[in-house]
């Protein structure tokens, strides 16, 4: 029973981290990227590749995974978001990020393989530690680091304030001389780092698996929908709630109902309170 809770927290932490990544990217670009879930996926895959495959030290592997996250998301920004935002068509970015997500997914499937591969042990610990196993608390730690560092970033640093200004009113921010293109690129890099870190930390739980990309895109989105887009608190709570409910659903009904339950929650929230627990209704002027 305790395992169910701990598992739920751990998987919820990954969802929460993905949701945070969504938020950061959305705040400066108003884009919800289909590639979001692929960042942690890459963090996990490359973490395994660097450490287990290439035999590099763990910290190098960690840095590498973060770097891959940063690079991938920056690339996404340049290729799929920047040019597309310049055009007037509202949903073109959905198509372009969908395209990039498909491509990276397939590349990983071809290069890394379609089977989930084990992720190396990061901290000396016997296998099968039960609820104390690092595969459970590493993701939780990573999510806490992501959430905490974002809070500090937004409140205490200049760049954080720039991000907030850009997200509240990009037009006004530009008028004040803020280079919104650069802010956006930086926010994508930051969120790429966070996603890579989260994926790396979660590797032992999720395994290094190419299919994690779309799965996290969907589940991270459910976390956002539940918690409310734009709210980091909502992202964390939504993610943890989703993780717990999935875990209990698996425990009660079996693993074959995991996604069904998660999506059921999504539909319920979208029907009852589409802006999520902590989201705000948006007035759309003509």
């Amino acid at each position: 029973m305790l395992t169910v809770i701990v598992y739920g927290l751990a998987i919820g932490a990954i969802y929460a981290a993905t949701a945070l990544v969504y938020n950061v990217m959305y705040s400066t670009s108003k884009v919800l990227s289909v590639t979001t879930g692929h960042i942690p996926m890459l963090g996990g895959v490359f973490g395994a590749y660097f450490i287990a495959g290439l035999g590099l030290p763990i910290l190098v592997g960690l840095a590498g995974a973060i770097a891959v996250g940063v690079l991938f998301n920056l690339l996404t920004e340049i290729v799929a978001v920047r040019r597309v935002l310049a055009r007037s068509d509202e949903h073109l970015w959905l198509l372009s990020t969908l395209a990039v997500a498909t491509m990276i997914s397939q590349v990983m499937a071809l290069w890394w393989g379609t089977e989930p591969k084990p992720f190396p042990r990061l901290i000396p610990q016997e296998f099968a530690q039960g609820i104390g196993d690092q595969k459970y608390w590493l993701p939780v730690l990573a999510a806490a680091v992501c959430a905490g560092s974002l809070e500090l970033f937004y409140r205490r640093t200049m760049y954080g304030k720039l991000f907030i200004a850009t997200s509240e009113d990009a037009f006004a921010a530009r008028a004040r001389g803020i280079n919104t293109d650069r802010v956006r690129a930086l926010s994508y890099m930051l969120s790429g780092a966070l996603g890579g870190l989260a994926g790396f930390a979660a590797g032992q739980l999720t395994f290094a698996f190419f299919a994690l990309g779309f799965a996290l895109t969907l589940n991270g989105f459910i976390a956002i929908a539940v918690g409310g887009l734009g709210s980091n608190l909502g992202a964390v709570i939504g993610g943890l709630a989703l993780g717990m409910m999935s875990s209990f659903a698996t425990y009660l009904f079996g693993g074959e109902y995991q996604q069904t339950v998660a999506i059921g929650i999504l539909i319920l929230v979208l029907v009852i309170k589409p802006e999520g627990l902590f989201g705000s209704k948006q007035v759309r002027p003509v």
Partner: protein
Amino acid sequence: MTDRSHILRPVALLAGVAFLVLLPFLVRDQYQLHLAQLIGVYWILIAGLNLVVGYSGQLSVGHVGLLAVGAYAFAILTGRYDVSPVLALGASGALGGLCGLVLGLPSLRLPGFYFAMVTLAFAVIINEQSVAQTELTGGGVGLPAQGFSAPFASPQGFYWLVLGISALVTWLTWNVAHKMWGRAIIAVRDSEVAARSVGISVYRAKLIVFVFSGVTAGIAGALFASLQTYITPDTFVFELGLFFFTCIIIGGRGSILGPFIGTVVLTALPEVVAPLAKLGNFFYGLLLLIVVLLIPEGFGRLLTQAMTRLKPQAAESKVVAPDPARLKAALGTRAGNG
């Protein structure tokens, strides 16, 4: 709509129809005929989906779920309950429409990304449940699906069945696209503000079109099952839904012919160009990205633009010159009724 009539058009149309009807005699082997049948089946779904994605602008990436519903319904009805294939075909269409309604009701009010994710989620649920409900669906092992009885039993016969239904669905969607409903859903896509300002109920329009696409997806699913003779959950993966969606975007939104050509090309290409088959979805993703970045209107639009360039253009006036008398007359039939 107000398109110019080319001399080219009726001739091309006739030639095309003749080719399609005679195709079973023109292909070299069973494999090519099978490919043609597959294209036809896909097109039945894509033609309906085209109204949703290409015309009303609702980015549904999860229609593979509706295909699966139709396929499993057909396999179960004909297999377990001995329903005749033709009846099962109709039932699959109806069930597809019903699922379209259930999916569309909560989701069509949501903004674009949310809607896309919900359709993705729907496909995931259908997939998960087709594995989980082993009693009904045979679980991971899957189900066999029956063929049709004469005259559709032979490959040629089945091909003509698929051709006939494709032609009907194409005709239906063509009609919708070129009359007031077409204008209305294009308005829903390009300017909801304009749509509402002329009295269109945007949600209702989206829903009706979506349900229609559910019916065509259900029918396509039934035919797909019969064609493949055996279905498993693995057949109906998310990537297939992405494929349908990509055919439309690449072919061009706001066109019937564009997505049709897109379907033919994207289905046939991996079969013809072997290295592409290995790349699989990477290829579709790359094409999608290229189209979005360089030719967002799709190849279909390029075609129509090229055709208009072939015609001699008269010098175009740009001066607005009202005709008050004519305007008054045009307003005349009002008598103060609002």
